[in-house]
């Protein structure tokens, strides 16, 4: 059996019950009045509910007095009407409370997660965060609901007991004696039930994982005719889920019959002792036992859910309380005019004691285009991400136009920087909206212009609905190349002062690439740009190239100068750029003839 990661995350913490309650309570604050109303209603209807057998008892004992009888019956009538109204008020209000509670929790969790820096997302997979924000909030709310209901049930138990003790304390004690039995039964199932439930969830998540994989790779499955194999694997996973969940269900099915068994025994005992003690209030007692066991059943039935609600709350607050690493010291409005970047004595590492940069210095002049080249792991992407404040650096200063980047308002700073990551990301939304994410209030014309600038927009017209075409999950309706064009158009629309490009060579055809290059050349005019270069064309055109090695600049200059030096850059050229040159292409012809 495959167990999918169910362990704790690094940001998980254990809250003591006290702390947990302190964290939970503020969420109920906005609903104080409603909550009081709900509890009031619950209490009143419990009180009224327990009056019913009592009055019934009175009626039966005093049935010969007619006026009294009519008064009692009418009273009972009114009582039930009142109970219904109370029930309505309580139910509709508690569903409002629950609905708003979920909403507020989800809002807080969502905000907290989006405010995390990239280091956080590097560590924790989307699927798990997703289930915390969406599912844990709902199971927490379930718990709140159960809490309200079972507190009222508990109230009922207490209220029922009072008259029982008044009328016949001996019989009441006999009934009370059954309570530990009920509790022990319910609790003894708890551990096994939780274990089986967990296994059930795991089996279902196996199904989920399997469906995810086989559906993502459906095309491979079809072209390689793997349907039968997939089908067989599915049957295994499905059968496992069947077995595990059946075992769980069978176990849980012992609880209720066991409880009803206890109920039966208690009733027999009451009938016996009631007979012996010649109780006049036997009716009251027997009615009360039915009423008593109802809340007891529901409390013990919901116990596992209650537990999982508590742990959901814990998981949720761990997420909300997770510390972020990127801290801004001030929130100045960021207006970058010149685009000068100064990096002074920068020290940075993703983990302690393994620094990528150590006292790193770099000046970028306003309007300069700078290419960074170097082997994998030299720190190229890290540098780009530090500038965009995706990660916190440990020491040194970075200034833009002379102002420390930690002093800017974070959003304001990012709005001035155009960052294009290596892999383009698209939302399952229309093409138009996907471009508009660069500038939310852009017009259709602006969108078309940006697309036109980003390598031409002919292809847009060929889509089934042009700009209105839904591009599908992650843009899967579009080809990889088209997705890159959209990401590029987005940044053009954003029109930032500083460009940071993690250049992706892949996926764009040579035609389009030539057009993008022309567009880039125009756009970058007069703007500061830092390009992690993979294209031969880029290194030939930029003002300055820096060669990074282990977080240090080992060479700098333009393409011709560096080639002439014949140092590290010349090596890198042979490793990374040569295959894009004409000489190389002609050489391949020789390989081909060799193979043949």
């Amino acid at each position: 059996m495959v167990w999918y990661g169910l362990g704790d995350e690094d940001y998980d913490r254990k809250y003591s019950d006290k702390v947990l309650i302190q964290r939970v309570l503020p969420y109920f604050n906005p609903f104080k009045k409603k909550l009081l109303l709900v509890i009031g209603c619950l209490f009143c209807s419990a009180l009224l509910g327990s009056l019913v057998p009592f009055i019934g008892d009175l009626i039966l004992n005093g049935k010969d007095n007619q006026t009294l009888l009519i008064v009692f019956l009418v009273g009972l009538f009114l009582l039930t009407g009142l109970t219904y109204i109370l029930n309505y008020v309580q139910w509709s209000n508690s569903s409002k409370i629950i609905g708003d509670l979920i909403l507020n929790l989800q809002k807080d969790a969502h905000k907290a997660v989006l405010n995390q820096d990239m280091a956080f997302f590097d560590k924790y997979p989307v699927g798990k965060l997703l289930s915390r924000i969406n599912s844990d909030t709902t199971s927490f709310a379930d718990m709140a609901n159960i809490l309200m209901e079972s507190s009222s049930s508990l109230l009922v138990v207490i209220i029922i007991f009072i008259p029982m003790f008044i009328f016949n304390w001996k019989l009441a004690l006999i009934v009370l004696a059954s309570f530990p039995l009920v509790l022990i039964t319910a609790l003894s199932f708890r551990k096994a039930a939780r274990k089986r439930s967990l296994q059930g969830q795991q089996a279902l998540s196996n199904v989920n994982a399997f469906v995810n994989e086989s559906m993502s790779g459906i095309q491979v499955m079809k072209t390689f005719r793997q349907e039968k194999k997939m089908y067989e694997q599915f049957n295994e996973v499905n059968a496992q889920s069947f077995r595990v969940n059946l075992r769980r269900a069978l176990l849980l099915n012992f609880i209720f019959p066991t409880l009803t068994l206890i109920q039966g025994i208690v009733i027999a005992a009451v009938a016996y002792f009631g007979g012996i003690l010649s109780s006049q209030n036997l009716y009251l007692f027997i009615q009360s036992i039915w009423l008593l066991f109802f809340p007891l059943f529901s409390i013990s039935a919901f116990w596992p859910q209650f537990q999982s609600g508590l742990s959901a709350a814990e998981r949720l607050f761990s997420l909300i309380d997770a510390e972020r690493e990127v801290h801004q010291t001030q929130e100045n409005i960021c207006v970058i005019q010149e685009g000068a970047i100064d990096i002074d004595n920068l020290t940075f590492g993703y983990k302690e004691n393994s620094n990528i940069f150590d006292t790193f210095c770099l000046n970028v002049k306003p309007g300069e285009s700078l290419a960074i080249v170097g082997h994998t792991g030299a720190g190229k992407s890290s540098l780009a991400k530090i500038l965009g404040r995706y990660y916190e650096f440990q020491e040194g200063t970075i200034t833009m136009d002379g102002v420390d980047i930690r002093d800017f308002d974070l959003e304001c700073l990012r709005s001035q920087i155009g960052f294009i990551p290596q892999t383009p990301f698209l939302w399952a939304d229309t093409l138009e909206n996907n471009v508009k994410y660069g500038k939310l209030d852009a017009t259709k014309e602006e969108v078309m212009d940006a697309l036109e600038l980003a390598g031409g927009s002919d292809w847009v017209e060929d889509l089934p609905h042009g700009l209105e075409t839904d591009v599908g999950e992650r843009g899967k309706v579009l080809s990889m190349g088209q997705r890159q064009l959209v990401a590029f158009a987005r940044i053009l629309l954003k029109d930032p002062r500083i460009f940071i490009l993690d250049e992706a060579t892949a996926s764009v055809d040579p035609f389009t690439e030539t057009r993008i290059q022309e567009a880039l050349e125009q756009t970058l005019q007069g703007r500061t740009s830092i390009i992690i270069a993979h294209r031969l064309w880029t290194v030939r055109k930029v003002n300055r190239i820096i060669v990074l090695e282990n977080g240090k600049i080992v060479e700098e200059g333009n393409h011709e100068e560096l080639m002439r030096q014949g140092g590290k850059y010349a090596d890198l050229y042979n490793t990374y750029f040569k295959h894009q040159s004409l000489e190389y292409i002609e050489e391949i012809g020789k390989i081909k003839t060799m193979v043949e």
Partner: protein
Amino acid sequence: MTFQGKELEIPPDYYEKGVEFGLEEDPFLRVRKKGSSRWIIKHLFHKSNKFLVIFWLIFMITSTIAFSQLVVMLGDAVDYVITNFGNIFDPSIYKGLIRYVLLILAWGIIRPVLGMVGNFSRELLAQRMERDGRHEFYLNLLGKSQNFHDQQQVGEIMARTADDVRMLNYMVSPALALIGEAIASLVIPIVTIALKYPPQLAIIPTAFLIFLIFYVQKYFKRLGPVTRDLRTNFGEMNSVLNQTLSGIEVVKGLTLEEHETKKYLSKTRAYRDALIRQGIIEAKYLPILMMSLIVVIGLGHGILINLGYIPTSHSLEIGGIIGYVSLLVSLRRPTFISLWTFQVMRYAKSASERLLEMMNEEAEKLDTSRGKSLEIKGKVTFENVSFIYPKSKNAVLKNLNFEVLPGQTVAIVGTTGSGKTTCTKLVSRLYDVTTGEILIDGRSLQEYTLESLRSQISYIEQDVFLYATTIFENISFGRVSSMDEVVKAAKDAQAYDFIMKYPNEFQTKIGEGEDSVQLSGGERQRIAIARAFISNPKILILDDSTSAIDSATEDKIQHAMQKVAEGRTTFIITHRLSQIRWADKILVFKRGEIIAQGTHKELLKTSEEYRKIFLKRFDVPLEVLIKEDA
């Protein structure tokens, strides 16, 4: 398709894929078209399930009878105690008391035991419903066309296969079971009342029962739109959040946090509103009021009889009233049960509607009636081929004409979105042409069975998909291959060296997780090439867009591709000039049309578009390019 040596084509009335796997006829095909209720009922009574239903019903009814016996016994016992007030310790009377107590105890034990047996068969039924529903749904998904799958979000499919199918389980257990129990514990007490007490006492509870039946129908209808909204909203919440988190880097880069939170909140608000709407519908549940009222009325009725105001054939003692009222009170539980079980039933119906909606979409129906299993040599001809995606108006491919000889390598180039990939997908019939014809070895594609066609064509896609299993499995891909074969394929694909660098070598797992490795684009591509060596196709289609990070990798991929293309008809969709330059034939695509075709040398002379790439990219005069080639 062949199954157990027999040539088998899939008739439309079967599981689209099931027959191929040796299953019998699809028993649910017709009922799927008839709506969710019919479909659910068919599942409930499918094969041995019906015995479980009967078994469960029997035990449920007997345990409810046991329960009302218990209640009646109690009433009798109370009567007995009251009539024998004061002399309870008289041996004969005491004996009578003991008899009552033992009877109560017996029913108190028999009832849960019977209930438990019933519950077991019910649980088995519930789990089977989930298993079989999921089986049917997944089988259906396997039979859907590529076009269908292109339009789906995997998250949505997952939600349906896992959560919606589970609703079938909840529907049986506890919902349907509780409804059964509720019906039994509504009817049996009433029957008991009619038999044991003055029959007129049954009037009030019967009226209540009729009221309940009508009310529940209305309630069920009222809940319909709300539960549908809840399920759809939850799905949307999931997919919005999923996307935000997957694209978090972009969200931050474009400072869209607030926008994304707003978007998410609009979905959660809709969810909250639906939740409240549901709460209010439940809060208004009238039977709860009626239930309490009939207890009061019943009590009054009983007293009136007892006092002789209403004439009856039977007399009614205090104990009788207690027994009667207890039976009325016992209607309380089924009433409460009906409140939320019908809500669960409604969820199950909404979920089934979502399942059926997807299953009833058209399955992959390719005409293979003329199909034969034929060996392919590798000549491919496109004759006036045009293609329009279903549900779309714009032609993606217009009037394509070209011919490729066996063993040739064809490079397909063109602007992004010009139809290159779609063109190659037509060859293996992932989609069928709209007009025109594609011929292989001079025969129309329809003359091949799907099996013989696809088994001789290999396709290496743009973003290579690998399964989260070992490298060995990913290369051998289900075909029984010895380690030697896999090693040879890996070597030919230039993948051997990097595979051997991992400690587990060919047994290294791919994917996320502690003991798994993540492969780079170039490495994934070479695994896919190795896969193609094993399947040894006559026609190979390479959708090659992976970037080589460095010249050394590029070199390796070049070698691998040269080798794998040897002796096969090869289509390469490529951005690599090194491949375009050396192909036997180049097709230049623009907006769904072939605007030029020929060799590199020819195209440099004839095609302006083609010339542009080379001149612009390399800053070399045209004469030099042509001369060098000459």
